[in-house]
């Protein structure tokens, strides 16, 4: 092998699919058939996963912290709700895209405020924007329904063919399809030169500019894209639950998202997905055991994760699966562990 083709081979190393990734998606798909009574919670997890993936794009790749990601989730949720309620766009997939675009416009407009300044500034600016929108939604209750939210949303069948059923089966597979498509898209992007340049900016903005990367333009681009993803997650929320209320903008929603990524890890796309599953499971588990104090236990778990280190936890969790995979597919196909987490 010549040095040049060798370089090409190694440059694409991360972009290749690992066996573990195939296994992951097969398991997710299988869940849809194995637990027909649990569609609602599983759909909830998928939405949270997509929402977390959106934050991962800016936090894990570009290093932009945000405490107001619910702003885009909320805009997507209300946009989807209004489109359906007033019969402007009845077809859910099209409405989903339009709602995502609405959030994207807001993302682009606010990106100029967010890319300025350091982490603390960004936390405050993003938090402020989300609070602002929540207040606006409450003020313009003639449009948003105020504290009652949008009521009486009736979803039309997907592509005019597949109706949303009361068990949430269609909603689950619809959400899964949306998540998977957007995941593939994100996966493609993060392994492109553009995606790599984001990681470079996160690592060292000074050097990034010194090799000719237009830092601000790249940050605006990814922030806008992440807003689109969050908007889609919000629209899915409205479409699968047929409600949109003020709590789509709530601070807790943005804060939970940070917790999801703390659990799942950032910068490898699966962090949001794994984190969403674990976070909701813990929530369910603890609220069954101790309805009043579940937040205490979630807090404890987070402290342990941060102290012990996620990488070590991952190694323990992946020990057995990797043992099996090594037997079947050889040493090199072990499940990826995020490399940026120390």
């Amino acid at each position, binding site marked *: 092998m010549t040095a040049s083709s060798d370089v090409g081979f190694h440059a694409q190393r991360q972009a290749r699919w690992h066996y573990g990734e195939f296994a992951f998606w097969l398991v997710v798909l299988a869940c849809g058939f194995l637990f027909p009574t649990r569609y609602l919670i599983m759909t909830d997890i998928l939405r949270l996963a997509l929402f977390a993936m959106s934050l991962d794009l800016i936090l894990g790749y570009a290093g932009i912290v945000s405490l107001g990601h619910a702003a885009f989730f909320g805009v997507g949720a209300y946009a989807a709700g209004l489109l359906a309620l007033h019969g402007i766009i009845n077809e859910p997939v099209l409405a989903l895209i339009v709602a995502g675009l609405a959030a994207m416009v807001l993302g682009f407009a606010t990106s100029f405020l967010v890319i300025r300044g350091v982490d603390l500034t960004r936390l405050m600016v993003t938090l402020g924007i989300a609070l602002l929108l929540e207040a606006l939604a409450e003020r313009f209750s003639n449009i948003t329904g105020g504290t009652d939210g949008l009521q009486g949303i009736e979803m039309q069948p997907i592509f005019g063919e597949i109706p949303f059923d009361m068990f949430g089966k269609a909603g689950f597979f619809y959400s899964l399809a949306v998540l998977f498509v957007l995941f593939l898209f994100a996966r493609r992007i993060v392994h492109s030169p553009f995606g790599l340049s984001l*990681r470079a900016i996160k690592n060292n903005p000074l050097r990034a500019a010194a090799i000719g990367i*237009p830092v601000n333009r790249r940050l605006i681009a990814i922030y806008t894209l992440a807003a689109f993803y969050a908007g889609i997650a919000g629209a899915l929320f409205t479409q699968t639950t047929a409600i949109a209320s003020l709590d789509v903008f709530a601070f807790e929603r943005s804060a939970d998202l940070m917790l999801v990524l703390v659990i799942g890890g950032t910068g490898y796309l699966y962090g949001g997905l794994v984190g969403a599953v674990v976070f909701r499971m813990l929530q369910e588990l603890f609220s069954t055991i101790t309805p009043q104090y579940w937040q205490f236990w979630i807090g404890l778990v987070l402290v342990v994760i941060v102290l012990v280190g996620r990488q070590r936890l991952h190694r323990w969790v992946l020990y057995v699966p990797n043992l099996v995979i090594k037997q079947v597919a050889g040493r090199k196909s072990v499940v990826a562990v995020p490399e940026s987490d120390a």
Partner: protein
Amino acid sequence: MTIALETQNLEKTFGGLRVTRDLSLKIEQGARHALIGPNGAGKTTVINQLTGVLKPNSGRILLEGQDIADLPVHKRVLRGLSRTFQINQLYPDLTPLETIGLAVSERLGHGGDWWRRMGTRSDVNGEIAELLTRFHLLDVMNEQTVTLPYGKQRLLEIAVAIAAKPRVLLLDEPAAGVPESERHDILAVVGSLPRDVTVLLIEHDMDLVFSFADRISVLVSGALLTEGPPEQVARDPQVKAVYLGEEAVNV
């Protein structure tokens, strides 16, 4: 003789402190020009103004005759002005392969590609391979930069600057902090830069300066003290007084 890089009456103050005083420098095309001066003379401040990290209070910066003083950092790089940093500025989590690949992609205008995967362009791959080989980084191309020995990181720092194919290269103390055993690689690399690349070297190591430079400017307290070929600067009593004198004190 064409002038590759020029400053005209450059002024920079930090609060009440004048760190660059009416500095006019001319660096000829293809020159091996060294900028020396005692600690705190404002050498790195000059580099930071040339590259756009700092904005001068007044004065002009001309790259191949065109005023670049108002351009942001990344646009100056695309115009052919690239630098290394005195303290390594690398991407700790990225590998040398990714680091250089990114620099090459940006220069060829592929940096904004968001659909095509890294490593699928043969022209980019070829250049990466060539640079990795030339800078002795081929065997560590998949290691995280943060894990590399300091000498290798220093080579990578220079390789990244070269990957931008600069016509003017600013080297800010390339051999700083490199252990004696790894110094040879750095010096060889610096010595083998193509002749059509104009180099401005900032350096404390007088051996390196006098073996490398064909012209030397001496900066003291932000102002140009003297300028000329190495032999002349070495004999200059003023230089001996402020610069070499200081070294004697240090010893």
